[in-house]
């Protein structure tokens, strides 16, 4: 795959505090790259540097091999940016908003009208084009926020948490729109807190924490690296059993007892559930419920950073 953007040893400080510590990564043409990280991971700072809106202290950012600083306006022409906060004029109609922002990319006349129609249709707002933004719901505003970034059909769409605080219906609309845009050849850089969104749309994932990249790969590859699964069993009386009894079972890494719950961390790929159940039956326990949780992005993230994504 050909890389559209390459970031090498990027570093950024605010006064004395370094917020990005020499990160390197690439964005490949046609992919949806998800940037994951909790608050304070420097995702937004990274994105603002990639948008050309923030300077940086060290490193290099290139687009098709050319440093972005050499032709910043030419680079920005290829970008569509969806900021985290709504960047709209509330007093204007949806159509006028998209028209204005698209015109800043040089669109005029029929080209502008076609761009506006494309953008509003893509996010499902064409029927509401003549309505004022002030009358829109939160979800509709979020969708319009995206429309304003795509009317000029950018090569790279940068989206900074575009689904924050919206209803599931609007979220689905947005995610479907992103998938359609990818099919049309658009490259997308997407940041979010929501794992389910990453699961649904990502071609590749970069996990950031404290201004560093701590993992990178496809979701399958990241899950593959995590070799654990968690087994939670509701039992009748945990006071009558000891955790040590379960360490003898092959693949068991960690056992903990909590009131009426037995939690076992086991190595993935070793089928030991029948042995665990047999042991509980021998210990005269009544099994009320069993939940087996394979590694997901949330648990991977927790393992890597020691904190949850929404922290």
């Amino acid at each position, binding site marked *: 795959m050909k890389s559209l953007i390459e970031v090498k040893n990027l570093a950024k400080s605010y006064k004395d505090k370094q917020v990005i510590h020499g990160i390197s990564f690439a964005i490949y043409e046609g992919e949806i790259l998800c940037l994951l990280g909790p608050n304070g991971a420097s995702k937004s700072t990274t994105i*603002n540097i990639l*948008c*050309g*809106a*923030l*300077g940086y202290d060290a490193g290099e950012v290139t687009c098709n091999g050319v440093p972005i600083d050499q032709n*910043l*306006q*030419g*680079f*920005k*022409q290829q*970008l569509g*940016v969806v*900021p985290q*906060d*709504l*960047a*709209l*004029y*509330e*007093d204007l109609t949806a159509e006028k908003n998209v028209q*204005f*922002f698209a*015109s*800043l*990319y*040089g669109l*005029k006349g029929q080209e502008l009208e076609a761009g506006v129609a494309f953008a509003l249709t893509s996010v499902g707002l064409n029927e509401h084009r003549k309505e004022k933004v002030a009358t829109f719901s939160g979800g509709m505003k979020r969708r319009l926020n995206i429309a*304003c*970034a795509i009317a000029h059909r950018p090569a790279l769409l940068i989206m900074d948490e575009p689904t924050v605080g919206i209803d599931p219906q609007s979220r689905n609309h947005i995610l479907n729109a992103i998938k359609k845009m990818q099919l049309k050849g658009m490259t997308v850089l997407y940041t979010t807190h929501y794992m389910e969104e990453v699961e649904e749309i990502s071609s590749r994932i970069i996990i950031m924490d404290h201004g560093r990249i701590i993992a990178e790969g496809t979701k399958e590859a990241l899950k593959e690296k995590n070799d654990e699964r968690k087994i939670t069993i509701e039992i009748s009386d945990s006071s009558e059993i000891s955790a040590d009894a379960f360490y003898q079972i092959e693949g068991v890494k960690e056992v903990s007892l909590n009131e009426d719950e037995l939690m076992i961390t086991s190595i993935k790929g070793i089928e030991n559930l029948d042995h665990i159940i047999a042991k509980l039956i021998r210990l005269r326990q009544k099994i009320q419920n069993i939940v087996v949780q394979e590694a997901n992005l949330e648990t991977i993230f927790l393992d890597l950073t020691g904190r949850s994504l929404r922290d």
Partner: protein
Amino acid sequence: MYRLVRIIQRDTLNLLTNPMWIFFSLMFPLLLVAILGFLTEGLYGDYFTSYDYYGVTFMLFSAMYAATFSANSFMEEKIKQANLRIVYSPIRNWFIPFSKIVATFIFTTIFYTIAAVICHLLFHIRFGSENLLQIWLLFIGMNLLFSCIGVLMCCIFKSEGVANQILSILTAALAMLSGFIFPIANLGESFVKISRWLPTAKVAQAVFEMIYDQNTASFFPVFSLLLIGSILILGLSIILFRGEEYV
């Protein structure tokens, strides 16, 4: 050029469609002239009334408030986010402060001109008849200078709130020292000396000379001073402005 024109159009329309700002720009000079004109009516003569004095000085004082409008249109919270999207677009950085100045200048020129006409009709204030164009140019020159100052303050302090706090102090001090609120001679010789150096006081003096002495000698130097000051401040704002202030 197309993109610059689009931004100026948008910024101007943002100001022209804000009822609060329209109300303020029309009512502020009207109320000041009405109240101070009425309260000090007995202190002035029949030929040169208190309304004539405050009509001129408070229109100039209002022109100084162009700084507040430009600071608001530059960094006011509601507009800031939409401005951020302009920063992301492929335009030259200087378009942003330049556009805010032009938009504020257009807005204040329109509404202060309307306010001056209303003042003239209501209080029979003399704004000069033979030299009306030059006087109007000096008023809008003040608008331009203070539109630039508002943007410069935002570029320096990176916050509309801080910029406006400083601008309030600055405009009040300049208005007082320029004799806009009461004749500066009342404060003593030292203040009169300071006043002589202030461009705002020079504008007021030039306007009064043109109205009552038909003397236009000061017009060109004062107007040039306002233009040069505006250009310098605009240049400084463009140098100081960084798009990342919106981020």
